[in-house]
């Protein structure tokens, strides 16, 4: 286990490196003069020249990359022009809310998705299966930003059960309960699609595993269905499901962009959208890099869990 963990840890170095190259290259893709693009067409030539120098645009691409990477290593992500503060500060402030939102909905979708999938598989073609399958289909097809609006309309505006937006109440909020109260709707909205994906995968994986020979062996030993399903089928199914949960994190982190916009959640997603419309390239760069790095770590965790479940992997 330890050696596998270390090996797997070593493997994320090239991945992080690759991510940085891609982000760098995308920004190098910006058509025309990035300095002009960043400052807009009303910029004075002086400002443009200064920014070009700041960005190192007068040097070769490789040189630029090396300098940029060196800065990153020191935690220097550049300065946000629209906010007029270091990118790293802004990103650091907003990472927490995003991770909280994503984590909450990941928890929701894993629990609900697994439960729905297992029930569906065990009651295959029964009424529970039919209802769940229909719900899953709708969940998978729902635009989450639209669902968010509906939930706000119904539960916040009409029923007044939940706040319309934000992370804390403006007056007198700030405790955990208040936070959870604000978190509920966005987390649920964000979890809907991923729940569908996990439920569907769980159902088909369980059905597949239940047909395998070792399940027949378990039954031939006289084990009862509960043991057969929990100890033999579900465990084997989880080996296939865990990496997909890891990948779902990617969808959840991405989907957070919509949800944060709809619910005015002060996370990185909303920051990115604003940054893109104000063409604050460095801010976009920093945000994307940090979230991608988190995602890499989450996938690492999923891998380690899978390794714990499955003795055949690694060693």
């Amino acid at each position, binding site marked *: 286990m330890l050696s596998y963990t270390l090996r797997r840890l070593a493997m994320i170095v090239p991945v992080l490196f690759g*991510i940085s190259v891609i982000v760098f290259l995308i920004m190098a893709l910006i058509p025309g003069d990035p300095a002009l693009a960043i400052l807009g067409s009303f910029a004075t030539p002086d400002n443009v020249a200064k920014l070009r120098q700041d960005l190192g645009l007068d040097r070769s691409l490789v040189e630029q990359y090396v300098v940029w990477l060196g800065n990153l290593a020191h935690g220097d992500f550049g300065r946000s022009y629209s906010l007029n503060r270091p990118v790293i500060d802004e990103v650091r402030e907003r990472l927490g809310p995003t991770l909280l939102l994503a984590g909450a909905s990941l928890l929701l979708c894993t629990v609900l998705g697994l439960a729905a999938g297992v029930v569906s598989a065990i009651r295959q073609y029964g009424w529970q299966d039919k209802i769940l399958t229909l719900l899953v*289909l709708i969940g998978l097809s729902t*635009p989450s930003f639209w669902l968010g609006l509906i939930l706000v309309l119904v539960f916040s505006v009409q029923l007044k059960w939940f706040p319309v937006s934000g992370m804390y109440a403006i007056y007198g909020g700030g405790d955990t309960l208040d936070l959870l109260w604000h978190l509920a709707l966005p987390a649920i909205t964000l979890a809907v699609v991923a729940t569908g994906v996990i439920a569907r995968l769980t159902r088909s994986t369980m059905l597949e595993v239940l047909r395998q020979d070792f*399940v027949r062996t378990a039954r031939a030993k006289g084990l009862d269905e509960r043991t057969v399903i929990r100890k033999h089928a579900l465990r084997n199914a989880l080996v296939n499901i865990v990496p997909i949960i890891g990948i779902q994190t990617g969808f959840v982190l991405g989907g957070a962009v919509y949800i944060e*916009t709809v619910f005015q959640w002060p996370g990185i997603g909303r920051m*990115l959208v604003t940054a893109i419309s104000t063409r604050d390239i460095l801010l976009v760069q920093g945000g994307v890099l940090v979230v991608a790095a988190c*995602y890499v770590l989450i996938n690492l965790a999923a891998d380690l869990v899978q390794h714990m479940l499955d003795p055949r992997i690694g060693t």
Partner: protein
Amino acid sequence: MSATTSASAARPGWWPRLRRNHLAVVGLIILAAIALIALAAPILPLPDPNATDLPARLAPLLSPGHPLGADQLGRDMLSRIIWGTRVSLAVGVVAALAAALIGSLIGIVAGFYGRWVDTALMRAIDMLMAFPYLLLALAIVAALGPGLLNALFAISIVNIPFFARSVRGVTLGLVRRDYVDAARLTGQGDFAILTGEILPNLLPVIVITLSTTLGWMILETAGLSFLGLGAQPPQADLGSMLGEARALVLVAPHVALIPGLVILLLVIGINLVGDGIRDMLDPRLGSGGLARPGAATAVAFDAGSPTPEPPPAAAALGVRNLATHFLLGGERHKAADNVGLDLHAGECLGIVGESGSGKSVTALSILRLVPTPPGRIVGGAIHHHGQDLLGLKPADLRDLRGNRIAYIFQDPLGTLNPLLTVGEQIAETIRRHQGKSRSEAMALAVDLMERVRIPDAANRVSAYPHELSGGQRQRIGIAMALANDPDIIIADEPTTALDVTIQAEILDLLRDLRRERGTALLFITHDFGVVADLCDRVMVMYAGRVVETGPVRDVLRDPRHPYTRRLLDCVPVLGQPKRALNAIPGLPPAVNRLPQGCHFADRCDRVIERCRTSDVALDPIGPYRTVRCIRAREP
């Protein structure tokens, strides 16, 4: 290899198969309706979607002239929705096709050329996958600037990895197929092999991936537009309409909600059709999924089936008139029909027959382990020391399984749970039936492993199945069967997957254990040599029926059924190379279209007319011998 079961049953075409899936048809109707209306937009009598009409702003639903109301600038919602759908659909489809094309190409090249090409391409794809899906798209839009074309481009790029990965995976598998090697040997070059052998077999994966990703791509482009990063005014797609109306959701909810509803409908339609296609192309991935076998075979006697004669109470196991059928696609496969057998205490009865003759189905029927669906026991009686097994309550059946009657299966890898240690898998059955504690059961497991001659059992007890060799795994299977000292062991081809030297060791082991414990053994094999080596009596099966039974020596020396006789003539015997191998012409009949009368008639060299007209009974032809042939008494 079961003869022509699939041979003559022509597979229905794709349309009838898709049509049988009602949900897919619903999806197709939704999708076709939306697509048709969107396509017809230019010829429909719609107002200009961009014509503003301020007096009508935010007109509610069903207003005169504006059936779906009007938006904040008084533009007609119906017209805007239809034109917007057109844009959304077009962008989604184009993005999907572009991603499919580029991704598949990368996947094919990587999978086909392998080595460093594969490594390089897949590392690059991994890098793209290392980003949260939408974030990469955002970064690309950030660089290129907002706009519908850029959004399309971004969504396309972030979907390329899905195609590249699944296509590569399948290509890798295809490249190793024998028929690709065969194509090389027939002189075909890389290009011919790629286009002729590999691409046609890849199309299903590409279509499947397309059907899963198209829905997402439409959702995600709508999402980018919703954020204001896609379609720019005055151009509008469903997402941007929703985004612009977001602020008005309290005042005029319909302006925001209707575009979302259309997206939902569109994507539901796409997903339903996609599920239908997946079910059709690869049942494992689909929403329907494979049927889940129940805990015990269903027992449902056919109406009017005769009451079977009760088996003798003296037998450890007595089976009479057992019929186990499979119901597949409206057809009835008579996998085992009218099977009878007696197994006495301490005896070894061999069941021989070619594949598909019903040996395994017979064996599994005894403790009702045949999968339902599609299997079902439709008639007969099975008694264990006089106790009727077919009428047992599930809990009582479970008490018997692995306890008084135990199984050993063929494939020693597939029949062990890969995630549990072999010790745990043995101990589990001890705990279940003897109520021992975990540690007591583990200690017994070590004893059992020593008994089946696994060296260093105390350490191997915590090994996982994949860490053992095939022969060792089968020893674990035997240890599991022995765990509760059963009086009957049913072994279904336990040595077929093993090398001869290992087979010899396992057969030795079984012989010794039988001598020590006096366990009765029902031993299934297709190898007459093994029967000769191990069994007291033998039962020959053909096309779901018992055709001959008797003491091993008598049957082998003087087979009375033409099938037994001719089957023995087909077996090459070591040390007798000059022995002429006389093949039996033809193939066994498929069990879903059995001929009337004798099942062997089409291949029999002694067939007469009477053989085909009426059912042939299994008749005694001497002490302890029965034969199902009307000419068995003739010399």
